[in-house]
C-alpha cells in the first residue's frame, strides 16, 4: 500500500469532511483503492457534493469527461492528479 502524498492527504480530508464519513479517517483512504462501489462506497450524490467542494477550494469546475466519472473519480490518486492539473 502506497502512502498518501501531500495533495492526496488534503483531498482525503476534503472527502471525509464533505461527505460526513464519520467512521473513517482521511489517512485511511488508500490512494489506489476505488472510491466508488466496492471501495469506499461513494455514489453519484457524493460525486456532486465533491465537485462542489472541489470547485470551492481549487477554483475550477469539475467535468466527468466520461460517462461514469470512472477515470477521474476512480481513486484518490486519480482525483488528486486531476485536481493538480486543473487547479487555478
Amino acid at each position, binding site marked *: 500500500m502506497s502512502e498518501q502524498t501531500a495533495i492526496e492527504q488534503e483531498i482525503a480530508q476534503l472527502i471525509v469532511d464533505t461527505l460526513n464519513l464519520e*467512521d473513517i479517517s482521511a489517512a485511511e483512504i488508500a490512494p489506489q483503492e476505488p472510491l466508488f462501489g466496492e471501495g469506499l462506497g461513494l455514489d453519484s*450524490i457524493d460525486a456532486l457534493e465533491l465537485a462542489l467542494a472541489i470547485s470551492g477550494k481549487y477554483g475550477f469546475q469539475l467535468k466527468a469527461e466520461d460517462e461514469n466519472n470512472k477515470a477521474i473519480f476512480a481513486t484518490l490518486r486519480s482525483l488528486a492528479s486531476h485536481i493538480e492539473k486543473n487547479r487555478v
Partner: protein
Amino acid sequence: MGQPPAADSSPVVASDLLRRPLFYHADSVRSGSDLLLDMLKVSAHLGPYEHIINDCADRYFFTVLLLAAASSGKISLLPASHTETAIDALSSRYRNTALVTDNADNTGRDTIQISKIIATDNPPQQSAADIPRLADSQVIAIAFTSGSTGEPQAHPRTWRWAMQEAKAAGSALGLDKNRPKRIVCTTPPQHMYGFVSSIFIPLALGQASYRGRPFFPEEIREALSESGRHSLLVTTPTQIRACVRSQAKLPRAGLILSSAAPLDRSLAEQAEKLYLTQVVEFYGSTETGAIALRRPTLESAWKCFAGIRVKPVHGELQVHAGYLPAPARVHDQVEIIDERHFLLLGRSADLIKIGGKRESLARLNSILLAMEGVEDGAFVFTEASGEQEPRLAALVVAPGLPVKAIQSHLRKAMDAVFLPRPLKKVEALPRTAAGKLTRKALLALLKS
C-alpha cells in the same frame, strides 16, 4: 403495399418525423430516417436472443437499440444502473439475454458493441413505405425498481403506454409537434423519468433530445449552451440543488422540469430567480408513469395530465389512464381535490427514495440485523432540507464489531445510495415499552 396496417398499431418512427432532428450533440444531428436505418442495421445482430439488456448511455444508441429489439419482437431490459451486479442479475433472471452496450470497456460473452455496428455495417435497402409497425399491446421494455422482498420488481411498458404517456406529459409541458424544442436530460434513459422525457417525448412529439447525460453543473451548462435558447432542462432536485449551490451560470432555459424526488419550494424559488425561468415538477412512479404536473412556486396541488383520473383508495392514490393495463396504486398519502387534482400528504413511512432509487426501510433494517454480532439496529431517513440532500443514517448496537466491518457488510448487500451516513454505534436503541422506534427518537439520538 399489401394489407392496410392494423388500427391498433403504429410505425416505430412516424413518417412526419423522418426529416426531423430527433437526437443531437455538439455538431451533429440524427433524424427519424437515420434512426430507422440504424435500427435495421442493429436488428440484424439480435437474431439469436430473446431479451436485450439495453446498457446504452447515449440516448440515440439507446433508442436505436430499443426500436430494433421491439421491431424484432424482443423485449428490452433496462438495468437500474450500469454496474456489473445490476447487469448480471438480469442475465441470470431472464432467458437468452444479450448485453448491448456503447461502453467500449464491456467485452464479455453475448456482448454486442452497438457503435461498431452502426459505424461499419452497410445501410440496408429500405423504403419509407416499409417502416416497421409495433402493436399497441406489445411489451417493449421492462424497468426495475427494488422490491420489498429483495428481488427487483419488474415493470413492463407497452408501446402504447410509452407513446401515450409521452404525449400526455409533453402536452402538459406545452410541447407540440409544430414547435419543436431541444431537450437536455440529466437522468439515464433506463430510468422511467428519462425514458419518457428524453426518448418518448421526441418519438411522440417530434422534439430533439441531447444524446449525452450531463451530470455536473459544468456539464449541464455546456449542454444547454450547445442547445440554444428555449431548450427544456429535464432534471432532478439533486442536480438543481448542485447548480444553485455552486451558483452555476446556466444559459437561459425555456423551462426546467424536475422529478424523481420531491422538490422543495424554496429550492424551486431560488432556481427560478437564478435562472430566470419557470421550474415545474412532474409527479409519478414507476408503476404509473408520470401523471401530473405543478409549478411548486405557485401551487401545491397537482394537476393530472389530459386523460388521467385519480381516485382515493384507503387514503392512497389510484390512477386511471387508458394506456394503463389496470388502475394502478401509488403508495403515497394523498388528499384528492377532484378527479384531476390532488395534494400530496407524504410518503408511506417505510418507503424512502434517494437519488431516484426507492427502497424499503424494513428491508434495509433486516439486512443490518442479519449480520452476526449486530444486536439491534435501525436505519433512519434524514429528509432534504435547504442545502442538504436526503440521506440515511443508521444506529447500531454491536459491542464487538468495528463500524468498518458493519459498513462493508452493508456495502455488499445494498446500493451505495442507501449506505448510512453516518453509521453510529450506540449502547441501546430508544425503543418504547412496546418495543417500537419513532423517527423522532432516532433522530434525537443521532444528533446527540
